[in-house]
């Protein structure tokens, strides 16, 4: 069980600040690093992998500093976003080379294991240049797995994959998380993050905007009223009852039901059944409409 600690880390290139005073801990399980283009996700991942020196602050793996500390790299596997590789090598040659660079005792066996893990055995003898995008992504994954690291950092792993490859990779990531590894993957595609990670870290323009479970993050945004859609046996009477109770900010009658805006999520969800019961109205549906990761994200990113 390993964790990466990021302590007040900033990184700037020339006069643009890519990462701005970020503090977070990435623990075992799957963490999604979420942010729009140019938020600083790749910069942060490269610093976690020891490829980039933070301009200020420090990163450590289980208390050991990461920058210029090769012994730590034995426990970290990084899958970069860039595809430029050694196109003239076969998949197997590439992974064996990586195993040798790690000075593994049995590079051949380790390479075969890693290739098997990503299900690339069938194409291991072909030059990487002939691979499809998804295959390249998987062989990069094998190169990061060859030394069996406790921490796996994936920069935009689903880019350019077809749906089937996407599902395969999701399974693989889940599997490895179940083994107790610490896995961080970055993405700007919400659907992937929603399906894979319960814990998310959101960065926006270099700043750490939020962390945790996205539904809980949504609750914390008390300045953003929650919107519910209610359908019941008598919408009008329910509207009157809710307004009278005072737990809602506004109620609108629409053709898809009753649209209620409330600032206090907890109080409202407790009160609705009671109010309905008192007024003898049957509730058919109560659904929050902006509890998706998408709306949470748009609130975090929105200007």
């Amino acid at each position, binding site marked *: 069980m390993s964790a990466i600690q990021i302590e007040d880390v900033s990184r700037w290139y020339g*006069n*643009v600040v*890519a990462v701005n005073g970020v503090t977070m801990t990435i623990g075992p399980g799957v963490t999604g690093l979420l942010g729009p283009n*140019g938020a600083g996700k790749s910069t942060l991942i490269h610093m976690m992998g020891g490829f980039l020196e933070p301009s200020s602050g420090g990163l450590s793996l289980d208390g050991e500093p990461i920058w210029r500390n090769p012994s730590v790299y034995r426990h970290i596997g990084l899958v970069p976003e860039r595809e430029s590789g050694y196109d003239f090598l076969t998949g197997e040659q590439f992974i064996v080379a990586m195993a040798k660079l790690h000075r593994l005792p049995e590079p051949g066996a380790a390479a075969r294991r890693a290739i098997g893990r990503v299900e690339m055995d069938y194409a291991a003898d072909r030059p990487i240049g002939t691979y499809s995008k998804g295959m390249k992504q998987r062989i990069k994954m094998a190169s990061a797995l060859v030394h069996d690291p406790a921490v796996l950092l994936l920069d935009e792993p689903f880019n350019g994959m077809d749906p089937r490859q996407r599902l395969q990779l999701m399974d693989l990531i889940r599997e490895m998380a179940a083994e107790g590894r610490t896995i961080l993957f970055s993405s700007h595609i919400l659907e992937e993050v929603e399906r894979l990670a319960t814990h998310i870290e959101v960065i926006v323009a270099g700043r750490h905007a939020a962390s945790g479970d996205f539904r809980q993050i949504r609750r914390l945004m008390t300045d953003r009223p929650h919107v519910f859609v209610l359908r019941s046996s008598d919408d009008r009477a329910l509207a009157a009852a809710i307004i009278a109770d005072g737990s809602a900010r506004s109620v609108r009658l629409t053709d898809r039901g009753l649209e209620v805006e409330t600032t206090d999520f907890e109080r409202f969800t407790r009160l609705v059944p009671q109010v309905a019961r008192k007024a003898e109205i049957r509730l058919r549906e109560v659904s929050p409409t902006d509890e998706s990761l998408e709306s949470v994200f748009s609130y975090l990113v929105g200007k």
Partner: protein
Amino acid sequence: MSTAIHDIGYRHYDGPRLGRSHVARSLYQYNLRSLFGLGRGARAKFIPLALAAFMLLPAAGDIAVLSFARRPEVLIDYSMYAIYLQPIIAIFLATQAPVIASRDLRFRTVPLYFSRPVETTDFVLAKFAAFVTALLALMAVPVTLLHLGFLAMRKAMIEGGAPDVPSVAGQTGEYFAALAGCLLFALVLSSFALLIAAYTPRRGFGVAAVMAVYLISNVVVLIVQGASISSGNYEIAGWAGLFTPFTLVDGVQVRLLGADPGVRAENVAPAGSGPVFLLAALAVVGVSLLLLMNRFRKAGA
């Protein structure tokens, strides 16, 4: 693990901001500094500063000779200075254009800029303005030095009995015309070099590409000019000048800014071609800037 929203990342800053002009100014300053390697290691400073020194050397030498010879014909024609020293300027273009045009592309930092309050136009114009400033300084400082040397030596030349010493007003007019020429040189050369560098982001390739375009256009134009001059067709030789950056701007110097065609070779721009040369020069600048914006806008998405 706990759930949190961080106020400083989530809640947006509504206070006063330094604004667009400040952004543009800092980018300009940063680019100008990196062109001369300021704020970077000694290796980044060596080439630009050595080239700047080489640019000054002939002017300083000329002043020294002038102070002994005391004859006005020793003074280098101001408008010819950039042309005599074009190899040095070309090396500056080739080595320094990639510094500000390729790095952001190579290290993919462009999206970082554009996800902050920076506009593509400002981003590109700041690079352009910085390069123009650097080139202008490179060319205008030695020309200024020449002119100061002339002003200081003029009395001594007249007392020494040198014939045809130009008047202060006349020579100062030439000086300002040469400065205008330098500015046009800077505009055309910057836009063209930045554009090439922005399309060759790989390390080393930008340098080679800028140099190649400069040399090849020169060679091709020289061949065309040589062929047409040997067949007596001076008109075509002059027009061919449109196709290399230096002769393009020189055509404007000769035909619109009153530079002396007598000190130039036979392939000078033909009489009356001034407006065409000026329009062509401005078109190079305009088109290059448009393409540059396009390049960075795409890289930032």
